């Protein structure tokens, strides 16, 4: 879907980058500027105009990554800046709804917390339902407090599922390492040793900055002997 949109919008990408000379980071800042304008407009009570600014901001927000991919300008720093500005945009816009009296501060605060929690793990869990600013367009039909509850619930649920997913992935990698299945500590250490071995042997991470390392078979850790268990464990 994303690729199809990028193919259709390719002339626009070329215009922005080649004709106007805009870099992906500059486009990210333009998107943030539009979102800040949206927040000010919504906060001052002009919801319709604010939503238009928000839509323009989201279009630019989609274009920064598209330009980066189209012209081979992807970078860890760019991804980080994009994420920070996205969260800042959402924070400002969400707070604007509270300032305008369209939703209670408590719900807005909780929605921001849920979005931030999800952001801390979504690069690793690869799970982001995208229910953030986009949900607010439904405000013409659904009361905003309900929308903020939905944003909170969806993002918090994605956070919980993401935590489980990351946990299961660690379990799979620890199990593959073999070794002493009685102690988590030894297996985590073995996993870290394998990661270090991969890094020292010059293995490269995948293109994604937070992607997990692939551990080749030859770097797997040999089974470790059973650790001496505390006396309290003897009767488990």
């Amino acid at each position: 879907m994303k690729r199809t949109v990028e193919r259709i919008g390719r002339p626009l990408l070329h215009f922005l980058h080649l004709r106007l000379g805009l870099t992906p980071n500059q486009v990210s800042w333009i998107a943030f500027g539009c979102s800040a304008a949206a927040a000010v407009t919504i906060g001052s009570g002009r919801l319709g105009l604010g939503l238009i600014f928000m839509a323009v901001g989201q279009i630019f927000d989609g274009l920064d990554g598209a330009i980066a991919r189209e012209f081979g300008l992807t970078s860890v720093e760019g991804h980080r800046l994009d994420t920070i500005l996205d969260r800042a945009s959402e924070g400002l816009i969400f707070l604007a709804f509270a300032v305008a009296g369209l939703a209670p501060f408590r719900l807005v605060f909780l929605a921001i917390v849920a979005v931030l929690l999800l952001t801390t793990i979504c690069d690793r869990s690869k799970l982001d339902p995208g229910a953030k600013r986009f949900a607010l367009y439904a405000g013409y039909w659904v009361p905003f407090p309900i929308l903020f509850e939905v944003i909170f619930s969806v993002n918090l649920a994605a956070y919980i599922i993401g935590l489980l997913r990351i946990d299961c992935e660690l379990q799979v990698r620890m199990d593959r390492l073999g070794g002493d299945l009685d102690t988590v500590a030894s297996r985590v250490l073995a996993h870290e040793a394998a990661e270090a071995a991969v890094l020292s042997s010059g293995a490269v991470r995948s293109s994604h900055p937070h992607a997990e390392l692939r551990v080749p078979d030859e770097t797997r850790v040999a089974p470790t002997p059973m650790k001496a268990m505390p006396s309290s464990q003897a009767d488990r």
Partner: protein
Amino acid sequence: MTIFTHILATTAVVQAMHLRDPKQIALAYLFGVAVDIDHVVKAPFYLRAIGLRDKRGYYWRSSLQEPVAFLWILPLSLLLGTVVPLVCFAVHLLMDYSVCYEKMPFYPYSRYVTRGWLLGIPDRRKEAVLASALVAANLALWWVHR
């Protein structure tokens, strides 16, 4: 700890907090007992790695019942406007951390591993003493509130 002891502890909390609303009671058992559902999620891993043998030291906990879960239980409690999930989950954690299986309290933010507390006392003895104390506490609370 076994599910039986968690049920006893949660029942004591329900009685001690005078919970009457069925929703509050459901929340209490959800966060005091049902968070153990992650063992079901981890069961396939256990079966694949160990099989049907009894190997209790195998790590089959998850972030769902570790202190890191407070990060999502706290905002959820704020939304629901009740401390019941926080209290019941804290009780569940305190009980689990008195059993000396290894745990990763802050994963995925940290790979710190701990065995918990009261390591000098055998697990079975801790469980037996706690279960007995909880039965007594439940009877006492029922007697007081009847």
